[in-house]
């Protein structure tokens, strides 16, 4: 019949993300070759990093929730939040995640969990007071899209080799020193240099990937709710609310920040390349394009 969906495709975003992933893979292949070439030590580091990554995937949820001061809430404790998420889950065809609330004035929301079946979405009391129901719905849909896109899994795996590179850089002297003081140990030196390069390049690629996934989550939220402008309105409201928050409240780690609806400390003048989230104007512009597609004016 008529149109299959009310929104067009975003091929540009798909292409950029695929290209970033491709580059990341390329960088990591170089690292793997260097690790293998360096022999046993390199493989050992890889195994340790692998163990840590698995721990991160399986064990970090509870730690992160505790770090945020969040507690899981039952439908009786937060009826409106639960009912809202129930409906969004039906729309997004997702199983119901755990729902948590963090008791802080900072208006924010985040999602955790390696797969949709093990996911937790969390909203702060600050965001629930600040936003209207439709705006909050947009924000929760953004977080549910992170869950559906398996962003925690993707980012953990994407950072796996960057972690290895970081270890090699940190313990580089051990590598060199392990072989006594014979100065012709080229493989360790090469590994050390390769690791530095991999670490630096993959850092920028990961930040880019994270920003693209934010765009994807904004887009997914608009698709689920059918109200791109409600999310845009929520973002501006959160941003203006964030500026009033004192610096000491910004206690989240960078890794956690990747799954926030809005990054803490975004007001700081950090270069766009170092940022896990795209700049506000670009997010609003992307949502504006979606609304125009919806209204048939694009």
């Amino acid at each position, binding site marked *: 019949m008529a149109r299959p969906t*009310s929104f067009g495709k975003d091929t540009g975003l798909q292409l950029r993300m695929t290209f970033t992933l491709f580059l990341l893979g390329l960088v990591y292949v170089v690292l793997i070759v260097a690790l293998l070439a360096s022999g046993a030590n390199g493989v050992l580091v890889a195994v340790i990093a692998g163990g840590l990554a698995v721990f991160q995937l399986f064990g970090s949820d509870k730690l992160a929730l505790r770090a945020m001061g969040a507690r899981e809430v039952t439908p009786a404790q937060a009826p409106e939040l639960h009912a809202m998420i*129930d409906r969004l889950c039906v729309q997004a065809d997702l199983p119901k995640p755990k729902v948590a609330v963090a008791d802080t004035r900072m208006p924010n929301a985040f999602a955790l969990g390696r797969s949709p079946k093990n996911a937790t979405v969390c909203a702060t009391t600050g965001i629930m007071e600040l936003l209207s129901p439709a705006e909050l719905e947009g924000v929760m849909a953004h977080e549910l899209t992170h869950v559906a896109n398996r962003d925690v899994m993707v980012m953990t795996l994407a950072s796996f080799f960057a972690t290895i590179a970081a270890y090699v850089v940190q313990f580089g002297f051990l590598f060199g020193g392990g072989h006594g003081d014979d100065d012709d140990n080229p493989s360790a030196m090469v590994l050390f240099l390769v690791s530095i390069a991999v670490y630096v390049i993959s850092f920028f690629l990961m930040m880019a990937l994270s920003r693209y996934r934010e765009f994807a989550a904004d887009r997914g939220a608009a698709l689920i709710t059918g109200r791109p402008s409600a999310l845009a309105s929520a973002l501006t409201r959160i941003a203006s609310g964030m500026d009033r928050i004192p610096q000491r409240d910004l206690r989240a780690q960078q890794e956690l920040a990747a799954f926030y609806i809005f990054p803490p400390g975004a007001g700081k003048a950090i270069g766009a390349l170092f940022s896990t989230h795209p700049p506000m104007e670009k997010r609003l512009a992307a949502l504006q394009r979606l609304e125009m597609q919806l209204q048939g004016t694009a």
Partner: protein
Amino acid sequence: MGLFDILTGRRKVKQPAESRLFAMSTAAVTLEMSLGLKDAGKAAIVFQPLATADFTSIVDDMEEVLRGTGEDTGTEIEKTDDAFGYRWMVLSDDDFEDLVVGVNVISQALQDGGYGERILCAVFAFRDEQDQAVYWIYNYKRGTYYPFVPAGGDQRRDNERELRLRAQIGNELPIESELERWFPLWGIPI
């Protein structure tokens, strides 16, 4: 969702599954005959109304058609918007078959207009011998039904009753197999 879709964060809102809505027409007979659940003469379909001219005109046209046929079948329509911004089209008719047909007319009109993914669910209301409300909710995205029995008090549901209903209805309805997708709908206006 494929691996590549996961890697590139591609999301599509799922379109309705192949419709098994009409399974309710026959199941209603069993519900009344062997389980003592009488239909309440009401059904509803819930969807997200988009604030666009195109969507509004589709809904208006569909409503007009329904009111037109309603004069023959005796189906009455009411619409309300709930606190979550969803629209409820509530149909009332003593003939249960007409209710199922009416719900299908609405969902079909939305799907033909290209807005199938905006439909949340359909709800069929029943009452047991104690006049307690029992609902059957149809999830369009998955093409499945599940029971929902509010147990009075603050957002409590009678899980035991719901599970028993699933066992009692057997194969007559396509039942949602994953219990975590038996999403409640509080404050159903029928």
